C-alpha cells in the first residue's frame, strides 16, 4: 500500500533563516507517524506545510498520489482533520456548532449529522450534555475532545495533530493519550502527530521521525532509534528524555 502523504524535497525559510531543509518522508496509511524533536526543530512547520497554512519554498507534497496545489487545497482540507494545542475552537459557537460547522456548511442531512455526532461523543468519551456549552464553559481536556470531534466529523483520511495534549495537566494528558490510541486503532486512522514528549511518541507512534534544526535526523521505530541511533544527537535526545522519566 502506497503512502497517503509523500513529501519530496520540501523546504521552507522564514526571513532569511531556514526553518526546514529539503525534507523527504511519508505518512503510511492506517499508521500513526510521530514527528518529534526539540522546540524550533521544524516539526510544526512541516505539519503546517502539509495543510498549506504556509506555502513551501520548494518541493512537492503529494496527497493520495496527487500533488497539493493552491487550487485543490480547500477540497483536500475537508479530507484532512487538524487539531492544535489550544485555542482552536471558535468561541462564538457552542461545542455542537463547532463540531458540525463544516458538515452544515456542506449541507449534510440533519439525521446523518446527529448520528455522527453521538458516535463521536461515544468515541471521544465526551458527554452529550456538554454539547450546548461554549468553549469558555469547558475544561482544557473537554475542549481538546471537542477539537478532536470537529476534526473527525467528516471522517478524514488524514488526521494532523499539532501537540494536541501539550497544554493539559499530566492526569488529563495520560487519559487522553490512552483514548487517542484507542480511537486511532478503532478507526484505523492515518495520523501524523507532533509532540516533544518521547514517551507519548513511543506510546502512540508506529513510526517516529526525529528532527533537529530543520532537518530530519532519523526515521523508524522507537527500537530503531534506541538501538541504532543515526548520530550523537539521537542518543542525546533519547537519553535526556529517559533521564527525566527515571527521575
Amino acid at each position, binding site marked *: 500500500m502506497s503512502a497517503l502523504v509523500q513529501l519530496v524535497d520540501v523546504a521552507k525559510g522564514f526571513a532569511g533563516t531556514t526553518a526546514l531543509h529539503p525534507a523527504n518522508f511519508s505518512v503510511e496509511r492506517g499508521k500513526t507517524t510521530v514527528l518529534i524533536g526539540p522546540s524550533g526543530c521544524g516539526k510544526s512547520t512541516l505539519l503546517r506545510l502539509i495543510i498549506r497554512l504556509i506555502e513551501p519554498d520548494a518541493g512537492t507534497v503529494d496527497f493520495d498520489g496527487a500533488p497539493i496545489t493552491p487550487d485543490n487545497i480547500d477540497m483536500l*482540507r475537508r479530507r484532512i482533520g487538524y487539531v492544535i494545542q489550544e485555542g482552536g475552537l471558535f*468561541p*462564538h459557537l457552542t461545542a455542537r456548532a463547532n463540531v458540525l460547522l463544516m458538515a452544515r456548511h456542506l449541507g449534510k442531512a440533519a439525521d446523518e449529522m446527529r448520528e455522527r455526532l453521538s458516535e463521536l461523543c461515544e468515541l471521544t468519551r465526551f458527554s452529550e450534555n456538554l454539547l450546548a456549552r461554549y468553549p469558555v464553559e469547558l475544561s482544557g481536556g473537554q475542549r481538546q475532545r471537542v477539537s478532536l470531534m470537529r476534526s473527525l466529523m467528516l471522517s478524514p483520511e488524514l488526521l494532523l495533530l499539532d501537540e494536541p495534549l501539550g497544554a493539559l495537566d499530566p492526569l488529563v494528558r495520560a487519559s487522553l493519550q490512552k483514548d487517542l490510541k484507542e480511537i486511532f486503532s478503532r478507526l484505523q486512522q492515518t495520523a501524523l502527530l507532533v509532540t516533544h514528549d518521547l514517551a507519548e511518541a513511543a506510546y502512540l507512534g508506529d513510526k517516529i521521525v526525529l528532527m533537529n534544526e530543520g532537518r530530519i535526523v532519523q526515521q523508524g521505530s522507537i527500537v530503531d532509534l534506541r538501538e541504532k541511533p543515526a548520530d550523537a544527537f539521537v542518543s542525546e535526545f533519547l537519553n535526556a528524555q529517559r533521564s527525566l522519566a527515571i527521575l
Partner: protein
Amino acid sequence: MRRIRKAGKQEGNIPFRRWKRRLFFFSCVPAFLIFESSALLADPIIIGSKKFTESYVLGEIARRALNDSGIVAEHRQGMGGTIILWEALRGAQIDAYPEYTGTIAQEILKTDRQLSIQEIRGALARFGIGITEPLGFNNTYAVVMRRDESQRLSLRTISDLQKHPELKIGLTHEFLDRHDGWQPLRERYQLPQQNVIGIDHALGYAALAKGSIDVKDAYSTDAKIGENDLVVLEDDRQFFPRYEAVFLFRLSLPTSTIAVLRKLEGTLDEARMTRLNAEAERTKNYTRAASLYFGSGATSTSAAGESFPHKLARWTLRHLELAGISLLLSVIVGVPLGILASRGGGIGHAILGFASVVQTIPSLALLALLVPVPFFGISARTAIAALFLYGLLPIVRNTASGLQDIAQPIRDSAIALGLEPVARLRKIYLPMASRSILSGIKTSAVINIGTATLAALIGAGGLGEPILSGLNLNDHATILQGAIPAALLALLVQSVFDLLDRALIPKGLRL
C-alpha cells in the same frame, strides 16, 4: 439713527452676544457657500431676512404670499446684517429681502440725505435691484406715552407737548446723546420740559407704566407699545428720518413674482406690524406670526401655527432621518473598508489614514466644503454626506481592529477546516469581531445625533433648527427645545444599541 434695527433688544447680556456674534460668523461661512450653489439649483425663490424679529416675520410673510400664489419659495431666516443681505441679493444668492428706506440711504447708498422712494429706486436699478413701495409702516424712533394720559391731556402730536412743560421725560442714553436725538428734537419742536432723565430702554417702559415718567423714546413698531397700551405721538414736523419697510428684489425675477411682492405694499401699518412682532416674540413662531397677516387668528393658528409637540415630532423625525440614513451608509461602506483595512499593507494604511483625516476636519468646515459641490448644495444630501463621512472612522477602525485581534490559532483552524475565504469571514471572523464592530457603530450613531444638529445651518432641518434660531434670538428656552431632545435622543440611541448588543453579539462572546 444708524443702529435703529435693534428694537427692543438692547438688554441682551454682553458676553453672550459677543459669543453669539462669533458663532454667527461661523454660520456665515457655509451660508455664503450655500448662496453660491443655490444659483445652480435655481429652483425656488429665496427670501432672505436679517437677524431680528421683524425681519423674520416679513420674510415669512413674503414666503407665504409667494407660496399662496403657487410660487415655490424658501425663507433663509436671519442670515445676518445689511451688508450680508445686500451682497447676497446682488450676487443672486437670494432673490428678495425686507429692508428699510433709511438703511438703504445710509448703509447701501452711503448718503446722509433723506432720499425719496423714487430716488432710491433709480439708484438701485443700476445694481439690477428693484424696490417695492413702502409696506405701510415706518420703523423709526418715536415718542410714546400712556394712552389714558394722552387722552386726558388731549395730546396727539409731538408739537402738543409744548403745552405741557410739567411732563417728566425719560430717554434712553443713546437717544440723549445722538446727534439726531433729543437735542435737535427739542430745538425743532421747542420743547419746554426740564425734567429729562436718562433711563434704560426696558426699565423705561416699566417707569412709564408706573407713572414715574410720562414720555419716552421708542421704536415705532416696538411690541411693548401695544402691550403697555401706549400711543405714538405723531412726528408732525417730520423730524425723524423715514425708516419705511420695503422689499428689495432682483429685477430679473419673473414679473409674476414681483407682482406678489408688490401686493404687500401698503398693507402693514404700525399697529399691525407691532401686533405681528408681539405675536412672534411671544410664541417664538414666525410662521404663526406671519399667518396673522393673512387671516384671522383662529385659522392661522390651526393652519400655520404648528403646536410644539408637532414641531418637536417633525424635528426629531428629521433628525433621526438624517442621522439614520448617514449611519446606514457609514455601516454599508465602513464595514467593507474595515475588512480591507484589517489586512494591513498600503491599502489598509491608506483607508485608516483617510478616515482619520476626515475626522479631523471641523464639522462646519466639512459642510462648507461640501456645499459648493454641484450634487450636494444646500440640501439634506450635504448634511447626510457630511455625517456619513464622520461616521466612517469609528466603524472602519473598529472593524479593522476587531478582525486583527482574532488570534492566529483561530484563523489556522478556520483555514484548515477547508472553509472558503468568504465563509471564513461570514461564519467566523465577522461574528467574532461583532462586539468591536457594534461598538464602532454605536460611537458613530451617538456622534451623528450630536453632529446632525449642525444640519440646520444648511437648511436640512432637525433638532438644530430650534437651537440655531434660539442662538439667533438669544433665547435660551428655544435653544433648549432642540438641545434637550437631542441629548435625550443620544441617550436613547445608546440604550437601543446596548439592547442590540445582546441580540447581535453571539452569546459565547458575552460569557
